[in-house]
């Protein structure tokens, strides 16, 4: 899972995305907010969901409790 490093820390793009998800957004919304290509956002969100840091409901992504804790711990 490239967005989560072997030591459990997050790659910079994954950090930026979970920060952006302090407010729930669609993949397109994150893309617009961070000015990233949509494919990067979708693939990173998929990995963040597999890591149980974000969850998707009806196309909207939000932080899970674990994700929220992780965001608060970011430098």
């Amino acid at each position, binding site marked *: *899972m*490239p*967005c989560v490093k072997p030591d459990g820390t997050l790659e910079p793009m994954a950090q930026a995305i979970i920060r952006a998800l302090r407010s729930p957004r669609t993949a397109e919304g994150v893309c617009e907010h961070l000015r990233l*290509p*949509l*494919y*990067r956002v*979708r*693939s990173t969100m*998929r990995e963040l969901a597999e890591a149980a840091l974000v969850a998707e409901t009806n196309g909207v992504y939000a932080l899970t409790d674990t994700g929220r804790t992780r965001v608060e711990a970011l430098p």
Partner: protein
Amino acid sequence: MDTVAPGASVPCLPRLGQPAPGFQAETTHGTLRLEDFKGGWLILFSHPADFTPVCTTEFIEFARIAPELRRRGVELLGLSIDSTYSHIAWVRNIEQHFKVTIPFPVIADLNKEVATLYGMIMPGESKTETSRCVFVIDPNQIIRAMIYYPLTTGRNMAEILRLVDALQTTDKHGVATPANWRPGDQVIVPPPKTIEAAAERAKTPGIVCTDWYFAKKDLPK
């Protein structure tokens, strides 16, 4: 001549107008799936090998047209039968020597999975390298155009841009484009399909009708 043994399966090659074969692949931008590009246009292209001269010129030129493509809603995705580490080293080498940043992901297709799905390997040329293939995939992930060049011949980026412009113009205006068409040129009005429509064609305002089957028009500016 290569022959196919009885009962052996022959890979079904992609065809125009059919859905692009789905895949998940390791790339220089992480694990990507075809569906990650859904909703936008995609140019999936292969090159024979990293650290080779023709491919290097092509990567530099793909990088140069990348902003033009993005303005048209098109992403680029490269592929070769090399490792991610090789791709990273080559991309960094291009940046170092040619001062060009490669902004698009490159699939590391070491097991030839995607190359096989898309028929990118031409055994008559090489069994270990992909040829210079280009697949233009639309927002619904339908294959709209394919270009195949041999190992020896670098691709023409102006033609790739022109092809994208032509396909997008066709979708937007329901027209076809003539030989050597460029944006701003007249477009082809699709030929009539009934005898009545053929009779009406010459009277249709706003078109230049040479004969019932051959008519052109300007697009609104």
